[in-house]
């Protein structure tokens, strides 16, 4: 699935131009707005919060190095997202060679501290399976899921940012959720 260039505001475009000219403060201001989104893309794909943090840090350095070459300031968000996803793909390939279970995401699974070890393990397993299912989705749907579930954006807000219709957002998210549900169901059975 391909995405159209997003509709960045004039203020954001100005920041992108300043960042492309080497202004660190402008770059920091831009990525501060996107940190949740970047992290969500990485953690959704990798299912490992520590690795996701590393990936976003690597992606930030890569983005800072290459922002001078960004021709279309409106495409900043998509461009940044693609850098994170590429970094996550590389990190994910490296992760396959490591011992499984290290750094698994368990934060928030038993925030109250009342669940037994079995319940916590089952919830961890479910989260791992979900991350694997998310990473199997195409890039565009991963971006939509991150915007909707991590940033809490409505269909209309996502449509506005990506420059596509609200119906398209609704349809693509629906397909993404159906795929995830089917995949989770298949793994459970």
């Amino acid at each position, binding site marked *: 699935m391909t995405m159209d260039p997003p509709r960045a505001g004039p203020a954001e475009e100005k920041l992108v131009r300043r960042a*492309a000219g*080497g*202004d*660190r*403060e402008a*770059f*920091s201001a831009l*990525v*501060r707005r996107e*940190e*949740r989104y970047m*992290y*969500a893309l990485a*953690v*959704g794909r990798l299912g*490992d*919060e*520590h*690795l*996701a*943090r*590393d990936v*976003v*840090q*690597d992606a*930030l*350095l890569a983005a*800072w*190095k*290459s922002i*001078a070459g960004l021709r279309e300031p409106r495409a900043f968000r998509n461009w940044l997202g693609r850098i994170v996803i590429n970094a996550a793909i590389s990190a994910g390939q*490296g992760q396959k060679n*490591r011992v499984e279970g*290290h*750094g698994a*995401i*368990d*934060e*928030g*699974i038993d925030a109250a501290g009342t669940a037994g070890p079995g319940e916590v393990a089952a919830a961890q397993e479910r*989260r791992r399976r*979900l*991350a694997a299912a*998310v990473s199997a989705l195409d890039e565009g749907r991963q971006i939509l*899921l*991150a915007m*909707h*579930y*991590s940033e*809490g954006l*409505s*269909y209309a807000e996502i449509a506005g940012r990506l420059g596509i219709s609200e119906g398209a957002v*609704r349809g693509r*998210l*629906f397909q993404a*959720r*159906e795929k*995830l*549900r089917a995949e*989770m169901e298949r793994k459970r059975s």
Partner: protein
Amino acid sequence: MNCRRTEEILRDSGPRDVLPPAVRQHLDSCPACTRRAAEYRRLDSDLEGLYAAGFRPGMFESTLAGLESRPRPHRRFLRRLTAAAAVLLLLAGAGIWVATRGGPPPTGFKPYELAIGDSAPASFEDVEGAQVCTRAKSRAVVSAPRRVKVLEGAALFEVEPGRGCFVVEVPDGTVCVVGTEFSVSVGATSTRVVVRHGRVRLENAAGRLVLNSGQGGELPRRSGDRVPAAPAVLQGTSVAEETLWRPWNWLDRAERAERLNHLRGVLSREPYQPRLAARELLAEAGEDGLQAAISWARAGTPRLRLEAVLFLGRAPAGHGPAKGSLRAVAADRREQPGIRAMAERSLEAVEKRKPSGSRRK
């Protein structure tokens, strides 16, 4: 409201959508749809949990703080500069052509060898508009104005723009630049070139190759009388990795951040030997290295956390933040037992260490 319509609405609704009263009414009376609704809500909640796990606002501030502003010329100015550089290149082209084919250097210039020590990791010299940092035990000669021959070892060049072409000769060809920063490393079978900023052109008898920022290339060595292979792009090269020999106190802020990030990657992922080397490089960074290890001890892969607590065991006796970090890791019941045990051992090592300069009574 029937089951089919209810399912359509359930599938279409997001985690924060309020279901219409007719759907809620149907759910009250239909166990199958209630189960299905619970499935959808569970998926929504799992997705929210997945994306929120481990996220803290401002968690990348330290990375952002490590970046350094690098003013770049305005586009219009850049266009003018490019045009001027093109004219300069045309004018300089004939001269370079003669010089690369053994032509005599301009009169009045006396070639000289760069003074490169064996004991320090690297030497630094200003050579006619270019700053040249050469690795210990290298050999380099300034053969003509704005022309350096690297005969052995490795060197990093930072060439000021606007002063014409700067040529670096290596046994395997030439590297021509207008304004950029790059490293050359003369190896046993080829010369490696990695570009930090700008563009460079590699040339040998078989062809040319232009490298852009972040790219690496190789000039293969001639074998006997055979024409060498044409210059080729090297995949997976990194400037940080290629220039690890440069001393920490000669790096600027961005380079320091880049090196720490590189070491972080090595300590997180690589096998034992590279990690061992990375620990030594981190030790060179002094207080910066300790501060990095303190932040890594609480964030990163388990391998990185383990390496960080191991490294913090080298901290001086009076280093409160290192001891505090080790205490926190040792007391963290959510941390892996192996890492906690290593934190305890490191803490013990730091506390046993005598403060430097202390005297016995």
